[in-house]
């Protein structure tokens, strides 16, 4: 305000003599003439014309359809076998186990299922257990763990995170591993026998190593440090309520596979995204020689039935599957690709026709035509 006020006063008195005061030196406030400030930056201005959109559709179609076909064929070549052993029906061999199963049973209930593979399974075969209606992705379930404890942090081992409630402490002793996830560890034991045509049962060797993520096994899960003897390391903690054995006795056969780095445990701890899920149980290694890993024929699945699921209407399955470059059997992906690719292809064609019709009527771009 003041500046204009003075200027005014001066103007009234000495018109024309402004150059003599400060006005001449006054810096020009003219904005810089840069492309940025004048909003004239060079720019690419795409516009959705028939010339760009239609080829794009064709290209998408041309890429998607072959991929889809490839995926579909690959997926069809994968062999998969699935058997439900929950024992819901009374005629099921596991019916009695299913009705009696509870966490408190000290002795496992055994049952066995016969099944037939109509086709031989080549290469490595992967054995999964599947659970249905099991909400591993429930918020309270997902968070009910203490990653510090699982990482072998001695403090967390002795005082687990509050997130583990109500499976945090058992009496005065901290639970290791704490939390609902660990507490509900899947503890059925599955054994697979091949019944040869002559009736002999051959136990199929199941590899229990290499079923967990590398990072989980080597980074995320660690036993408490300081002692080679896990019993000592876990001293002062107690096993989860539902467990039969403490964490350091999870795998009696392999001392290296005990504690938090037990692979079955790690697999279980990687929670599933959906209530119906499968987890890798064992790997059946490819046999050397021409015989398939699992030749076609009759098999028997022996189950130590420990894990109760009938109470919440859950289901348990055993799955055998081979694998390709794109993983397991997955028909959806191939079909989806073929569908999307075809739609694009037809859209491209349809639009081309439509565009041509419109041009013939209205000229370029339809609507208003600008003379040039």
């Amino acid at each position, binding site marked *: 305000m*003041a500046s204009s*006020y*003075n200027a005014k*006063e001066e103007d009234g008195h000495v018109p024309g003599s402004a150059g003599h005061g400060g006005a001449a030196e006054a810096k020009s406030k003219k904005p810089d003439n840069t492309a940025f400030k004048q909003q004239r*930056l060079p*720019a690419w201005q795409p516009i959705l014309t028939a010339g760009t959109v239609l080829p794009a559709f064709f290209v998408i179609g041309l890429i998607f359809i072959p991929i889809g076909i490839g995926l579909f064929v690959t997926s069809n070549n994968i062999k998969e076998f699935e058997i439900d052993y929950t024992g819901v029906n009374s005629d099921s061999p596991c019916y009695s186990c299913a009705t009696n199963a509870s966490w408190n049973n000290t002795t496992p209930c055994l049952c066995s299922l016969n099944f037939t593979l109509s086709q031989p399974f080549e290469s490595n075969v992967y054995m999964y257990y599947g659970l249905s209606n099991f909400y591993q992705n429930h*918020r309270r379930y997902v968070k009910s763990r203490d990653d510090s404890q699982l990482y072998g942090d001695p403090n967390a081992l002795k005082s687990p995170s509050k997130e583990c409630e109500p499976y945090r402490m058992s009496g005065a002793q901290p639970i290791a591993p704490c939390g609902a996830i660990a507490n509900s560890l899947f503890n059925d034991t599955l054994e697979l026998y091949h019944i040869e045509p002559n009736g002999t049962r051959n136990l199929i060797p199941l590899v229990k190593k290499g079923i967990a993520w590398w990072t989980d096994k080597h980074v995320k899960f660690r036993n408490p440090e300081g002692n080679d003897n896990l019993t000592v390391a876990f001293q002062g903690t107690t096993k989860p309520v539902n467990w039969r054995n403490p964490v350091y006795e999870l795998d009696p056969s392999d001392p290296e596979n005990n504690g938090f780095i037990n692979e079955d445990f790690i697999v279980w701890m990687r929670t599933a995204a959906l209530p119906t899920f499968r987890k890798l149980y064992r790997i059946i290694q490819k046999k050397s020689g021409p015989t398939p890993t699992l030749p076609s024929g009759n098999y028997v699945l022996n189950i130590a039935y420990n894990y109760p699921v009938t109470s*919440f209407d859950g289901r348990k399955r055993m799955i055998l599957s081979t694998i390709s470059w794109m993983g397991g*059997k997955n028909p959806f992906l191939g079909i989806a690709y073929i569908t999307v690719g075809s739609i694009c292809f037809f859209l491209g064609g349809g639009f081309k026709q439509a565009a041509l019709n419109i041009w013939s009527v209205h000229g370029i771009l339809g609507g208003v035509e600008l003379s040039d």
Partner: protein
Amino acid sequence: MFRKRFPPEEERRVRANDREYNEKFQYASNCIMTSKYNIITFLPVNLFEQFQEVANTYFLFLLILQLIPQISSLSWFTTIVPLALVLIITAVKDATDDYFRHKSDNQVNNRQSQVLIRGSLQHEKWMNVRVGDIIKLENNQFVAADLLLLSSTEPHGLCYIETAELDGETNMKVRQSVSVTSELGDPNNLFSFDGEVVCEPPNNKLDRFCGTLYWRDKKYTLTNQNMLLRGCVLRNTEACYGLVIFAGPDTKLMQNSGRTKFKRTSIDRLMNTLVLWIFGFLVCMGVILAVGDAVWEREVGSLFQSYLPWDPPVNNFLFNAFLSFWSYVIILNTVVPISLYVSVEVIRLGHSYFINWDQQMFCSQCNTAAEARTTTLNEELGQVEYIFSDKTGTLTQNIMSFNKCSINGQTYGEVTDPLGPQAKRLDFTPFNPLADLDFCFYDDTLLESVKVGDSHTHKFFRLLSLCHTVMSEEKSEGELVYKAQSPDEGALVTAARNFGFVFRSRTPGTITTTEMGRPVTYTLLAILDFNNIRKRMSVIVRSPEGRIRLYCKGADTVLLERLHPCNQELMNITSDHLNEYAADGLRTLALAYRDLSEDEWEAWSESHRCADKASDCREDRVAAAYEQIEQDMMLLGATAIEDKLQEGVPETIAVLSLANIKIWVLTGDKQETAVNIGYSCKMLTDDMTEVFIINGHTVQSVRQELRRARERMIELSRTRDGGKESGMEGWGEAYFSGNGLRGGQEGDGTESGGGGGGGGKPPQCPPPPPPPPPPPPPPSPPSNLMDNVSGEFALIVNGHSLAHALEADMETEFVSTACACKAVICCRVTPLQKAQVVELIKTHKKAVTLAIGDGANDVSMIKSAHIGVGISGQEGIQAVLSSDYSFSQFRFLQRLLLVHGRWSYLRMCRFLCYFFYKNFAFTMVHFWFGFFCGFSAQTVYDQYFITLYNIVYTSLPVLAMGIFDQDVPDHRSLEYPKLYEPGQLNLLFNKKEFFICITQGIYTSVVLFFVPYAVLSDATQSNGVPLADYQTFAVTTATALVIVVSVQIALDTGFWTVINHVFVWGSVGCYFSIMLALHSQSLFRIFPNQFHFVGSAQSTLLQPVVWLTIALATAICIVPVLAFRFLKLDLKPQLSDTVRYTQLVRQKKRKPAGRSVGSAWRGVGMVAEGRLGARGGSRRSGYAFAHQEGFGELITSGKNMRLSSQALANFASRHSSSWIDTLRRKKHNHTHTPPSASGECSPAPSCVSGLFPLGPQKPIQLQHRAQSQLHLQGPAQAPSSSVLGSSAVRCHGGDSPGGWTLSLGSVQEALFGWKGFAGRSGASNSQGLPPVAKETSHIE
């Protein structure tokens, strides 16, 4: 704030020179405060204000919810980080704004004024001026507070003020002090003045003041005539003294400036509504999911308890569902992310900078760039439907120039060939040494005609030199300064001066002129003063030869009726000329004279004297007397004065109206002036179907006039539309053909019908009734009929009618009439009415309004409109200070609206569409996941992804689009004003568009959830490990989301600059690198509990299936969008698409950019212009005269005459001393001398004798040099030496304003001769020199 506690003032008592007494009343001091915060109150007040924003409170609420463990579905930082960011950014912005407000307040408050304290004048800051102080004001100073004028240096206590800051009128006004106080000349007497003023409490009425002065047991009535209001500037008065009555916030200026309202854009309001809707939507989803949770917990969860027991306080499924509802409210809150508000602010800030940086809105003459003072309104600039413009200083430069004239049937000043070489400006100096050098005229035939001595031409200019109320001031021989009360008169007298009829001076009884170099003194017998009803003024003079003649100038309509019948032929020619001038938008006056015999004069003089003395109906009688003598006059010709428009005004108005923006002119000026400007800036054209004038003085008459106007409109448009219909056609045509004439006459008729003739119908008004009388139209045409009125109408409303029209029950009537018109002009509008009109349109039309003005009288309008634009022109910067945008030329408005506004709107709309889209796509995935995770409010994504999604991964590309996007280049949007329309119709972002966006967002979320669901549920890695674990799923979905929204922004961006590329690619890159970092082993090793996702990114992104899933999801999301957009563009292209496409084609062809493409649209503008310039057939008086009644009386009474040439010279010298004073003060400030120090430089009349309290060394030397040079080199070298001289004087002049009252006497007179010489030799600098020379002489 303090004053609020006191009861409102009933009356104000002020005692002069008695601070103690006045302090009892706790009147407001002269300190003004427009800032909102101080350091202590800033934090609480600002936070309070910020949390009044619904959004901020909502986020605070969410934050609190998240602290409850049973509810918390997200970590606390996902909300607090963005919220804190928002609060901090806003607070910083508010603090900066307020800092500048503090600064400007301080500047004003620290202005210096001279206060009479203890008998001496002391410099005080404005803020320290108290009610009851006596202030000395000098010429050209702003009045510091509302003052009662006590005395002035002019005779009779008169002083002149310019009230441009207050009401925008630039003509000078006279104020006079009460006679008793005007005698108290000097500070000593004034100090003893202890009168007490009792007056009304502070109010905002600018034209009213009532109070009483009690002094020495006598009462004197005070009126507005005695007041000097803050914001006025003292003019042509050397100095005056005033008593402060109202100070600071109590002044009428401040009372008139309405409260600052926080302006919101319509997009803002829409956004808030949408946010509320979204909130509702959120609650709905929450309820759905909570119900789902209840069902799930009852059917499944309760059974699943052996694996997953309920959290302790939860003991039944209902309670669980209740908690689940809140959990979902938290995780779904990202549909309205807080970053929305920050981003919007950032985008607007960017747009504001572009406005500030725009070179094409920079005015090099005044060195001012456009400035976006409010950064939050930019997109509203793209939606303006109504512009309310001030006239003076906004449309016009307020410079009158004598442009054309018609003398005895011959027109001059016509530039014959507009395409030819620029006509040469006439040089008058060789012909006439007294000519004003600034005067421009191009037609030399007129000068020739003067030179050859054409008697008509001579009479013409003689009339101009005699018939006026201009005061002259001759500071030195030949250096004339005219003080005209209206700029028109000044222009006319100056024209006469240049053509050899120089008005030199006047006394109450004489007028001295120099006619063709020969001094002539006329005896002034009478001034028949101007008034609005007469619309003419006359003088009766006796020439030295003794001939008595009446000279009259006035509106042609009035004057032509009073001519002698023998003038018929000339009158026809002249009125043709007048029409031409008027059609060009010039202000015309007709000139006539009448020779009077001695007897006639005697007789009339007698009757006039009687009339004048009559006690009753004096006015009428005097008017009748005037009427009696102003008869049988001989026509001389007509003048046409151009009220110079600002550069590019008609073009701008044409372009804006092509863009469908309605322009209303609200002016304080008179109707004629306003209408004239309306024509010259092409708002009104002769092609208009009809121009209605609302001029009623009562509610009924205004209502009637409005109704009649509407009926006519409907009639006329019916005639136009259904012209073929028989029956109607006949009389409709009759109406139509007659209307132009009627429109013109109606206005004049009402005017001359008398201001008082309100109630009745104006006499000339009723149209000739058509033979078959039309059926009576409905009493009040329904407004829907008004919407489709076709035809171009204009409405002119007078101030007093407007007052009625704005009354509650008339509002709708007024709005429906006015809005059907293409142009509306309101004249004689007060500042408050301006605001009311704006409010009216705002409330009734729900349209975006923009007010543009330059004076303090426009402040209220600027504040109440959606957007206020201030012209930083001559009328101070009050308007600029309260405006949202400011620049220095009206024509920049088109760029501001059509380019910046349009872009802003476009960008903001695209931004919002995309923003809502991306957040729905992001958030709704949780909703679908809810059905698969037992409604447990488990998030799909990693918590870090949720935190960073809006502020890192997706913010910059959309910001870049919101800031840089352009659909068509700037010059195209000026070429095709129609491109502006989508903004006005709110097409680019409205509720429908919003639904489309969120539908698209929801569709995307469905795809993003179910495609990975379908693919991954059975898929395994190539090593057999299933992919369906939660973390893989989360990473896949998140990656797909980021890629889909990035592709979408790529589709939305229409203008890919480097920055867009960097941001889009950078964001995707950023996503991957941040994700890999967060999933890295090293971070996990440090905080194993915080980074659960260790290794997920690596193992997931190595899987081909994951990439195939992402590609599939992207294709499914984008292909339909692409197809839809392509079809839309192909089948229903918008104008912008077409323009853009043409641009592209042209670029491809690499043709030189021919401008022919725009011709179709631009053509309209050109045609309009061309047509406007054409001569209209209708008759319209271009008469306009910014004149006020009463000046004639002032002259004949001799009140405003200066006593002697000595006093005049005296004035001149003091005049310059105050200028020196200013410079001196500047210097003072520069040397950091505390202002109070100036007080010690006592007013020393003898300081010339070598007493230099402040500049001891240099000034003396300079002075010596100046003297010696003067002595040695004599007058020839004066210009150079005087420069030095002036600088010497400058150093001490300010200390002693009283010091220059020394009479200069003979020295002064002796110098006149010399000065005349200097003036002629240094022609280019002549105006700068005189005061300087005088100072020099003074030192001698």
